[in-house]
């Protein structure tokens, strides 16, 4: 399958522990030198979008299933928060406490994704893209037409995170750390999950479903379980997103943003879980500062062109670009260092099963 060449995992990040620690420290102290705008609009937003894309990366990178419905799942969780909790629109808003609303929303989102998975895993490759795109667009039209539950075109506004421990979690600083904790937690979970028995079987299924079936693995069940797990990630991020925006409407789950999530994941790189976050940062920076480059209205042209160039020239995304540069440097060094390093690096092309 062509998907394999695009999405096989790579083993280069775990070896760079010093760099990883530096990034973590930088992220933790980031608010101390950045303005509120950069902490909230850039930092927290990138982390949330990155988390949603991470749920896609997990499916696509480890499972070989490119689902375009991840934003739909996140949006569904966001809608549920507005419907079950409080909103200022006067439609629905059942007023449940946050500790009931949030778990319900996340779980319901995960179940929705399980359902989407159950529909689409019977097909493979591009069929999955088509079916999940159809589901995403159908959901968009559904919430736009449905006024009884989803309040149609207007959607909901006035959705806020709870005030807890005397902290208003909508304030830039607490919200940034909340997003960072969620994003970091899921990143860690995906990194480690990829090396678990389940993660390894999922990657083996991506590489050769027929062989895994012959070995007695339930291919369909593994895939559906992966959808459930990625639904948990997307749902949690969706709750954060609705808190971030304070409102949700059909536009939040429209085709543009659904595709944006795929763009973020592909531009960042689907080989490693850190890719989606790189893509999200690039995307959010472009979104906020493209106004300086060209007309604000033409943002989609910029992002589309970036996407096109990445797909055409670097199928592994920014991460692949980075890896290519570093491996070139390493190649030069290796020529001098000789056989020992070559053995160590020679492992890379076949390293897809190792995940990280």
């Amino acid at each position, binding site marked *: 399958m062509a998907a394999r060449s695009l999405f096989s995992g790579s083993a280069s990040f775990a070896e760079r522990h010093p760099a990883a620690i530096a990034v973590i420290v930088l992220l933790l102290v980031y608010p101390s030198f950045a303005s509120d705008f950069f902490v909230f609009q850039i930092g927290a937003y990138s982390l949330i979008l990155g988390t949603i894309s991470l749920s896609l990366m997990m499916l696509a990178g480890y499972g070989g299933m490119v689902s375009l419905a991840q934003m739909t799942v996140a949006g569904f969780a966001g809608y549920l928060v507005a419907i079950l909790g409080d909103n200022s629109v006067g439609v629905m808003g059942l007023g449940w406490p946050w500790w009931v609303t949030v778990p319900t929303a996340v779980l319901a989102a995960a179940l929705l994704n399980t359902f989407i998975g159950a529909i689409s895993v019977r097909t493979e490759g591009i069929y999955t893209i088509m079916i999940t795109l159809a589901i995403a667009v*159908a959901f968009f039209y559904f919430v736009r037409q*449905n006024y009884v539950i989803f309040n149609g075109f207007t959607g909901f506004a006035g959705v806020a995170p709870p005030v807890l421990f005397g902290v208003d979690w909508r304030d830039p600083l607490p919200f940034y750390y909340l997003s960072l904790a969620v994003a970091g937690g899921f990143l860690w979970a995906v990194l480690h999950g990829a090396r678990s028995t389940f993660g390894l079987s999922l990657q083996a299924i991506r590489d050769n479903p027929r062989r895994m079936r012959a070995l007695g693995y339930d291919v369909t069940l593994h895939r559906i379980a992966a959808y459930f797990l990625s639904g948990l990630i997307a749902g949690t991020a969706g709750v954060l997103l609705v808190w971030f925006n304070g409102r949700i409407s059909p536009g939040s789950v429209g085709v543009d943003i659904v595709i944006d999530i795929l763009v973020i994941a592909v531009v960042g790189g689907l080989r490693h879980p850190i890719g989606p976050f790189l893509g999200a940062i690039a995307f959010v920076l472009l979104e906020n500062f493209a106004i300086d480059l060209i007309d604000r209205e033409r943002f989609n042209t910029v992002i589309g062109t970036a996407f096109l160039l990445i797909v055409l020239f670097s199928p592994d995304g920014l991460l692949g670009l980075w890896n290519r540069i570093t491996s070139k440097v390493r190649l030069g060094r290796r020529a001098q260092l000789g056989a020992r390093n070559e053995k160590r690096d020679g492992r890379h092309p076949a390293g897809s099963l190792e995940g990280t």
Partner: protein
Amino acid sequence: MRQFVERHTFWAIVILLAAAVFLWMIFAVWPDWLVSGLGRKKTFVNTLLNGVTLGGLYFLVASGFTLVFGLMRNVNLAHGSLYLLGGYIGYEVAEASGSWFLGLAVAFLAIAASGVLMQVLIFRRMEGDDLRQTLVTLAISIIAADLMLAVWTGTTYQFAPPEWLFGAATLPVVSVVKASGDPVFIKYPIYRLTVLAVAVAVGIGLWLFLNRTRIGMMIRAGVNDRQMLSASGVNVQLLFALVFAIGAGLAGFAGVVGGTALSIAPGEDVRYLLASLIVVIVGGLGSVTGAAIGALLIGLAEQFGLAYFPTYGVVLTFLILVVVLAVRPQGIMGTR
């Protein structure tokens, strides 16, 4: 046909009965209990015709989509953009020249040419890498939608079709009988009936082209085994370009036809992309007959959903998709 009756006698009877009830519902004057159950007959017949004509329009768009996929395994997610671009180009030409038919022809040719361009410049470079091709078409659709918005803005455009396509035709279907005893006949726009006729004509034309011509034979051979066809001396690249031209051209053609029936506005590209996706998933990828069946089903589902349960109309379409995927993942006419 006869085999089917012999093998599935029960289902044959059910289908026959359903068809009889259906015909009766169209042509008979409805008794009161039916009117109280389903509403006025006029609504029903109009919805039915709307559904069928919309199905015809969907077929025009989706047949190109499925044709391209069948041969090249390339899901062209920019197909909706081609539809919209065809509509805009057709509108500009029709406005400038005053001839609706010229607009139609130019839209077909221009979009066919851009289809060939896409095939030659992009898809040929990444043959066999279907996922990358899909992502590229997605990128193109994003850029195209944005550029079209820049050029033609968010305004809704309305075509002016020739005079004789205007107006309504009286159908030989009685809706109600007045107290005076005069029957009231149902009227329906001529243009929409023309759309249906065009769709049927295109469908038959495509079928003849694929099944009765030499090039059609090559295309069918290519669908079955691309390498073998190439090995037997056919210029496959030329064939690909031709199929892409026809598929894209049909989308542009549908842009003018559909734009006249409804209107041309930003966002239509997504609508028709969704329609094509669902139609070919339901009908079976790569099958023109499947596209026809799928288009009819989806068109009817959409219109009946809109007329009888407006808030949940989309769910009906979606339900068809789910049921088909659950029972027959390859689509109604699909082969795997």
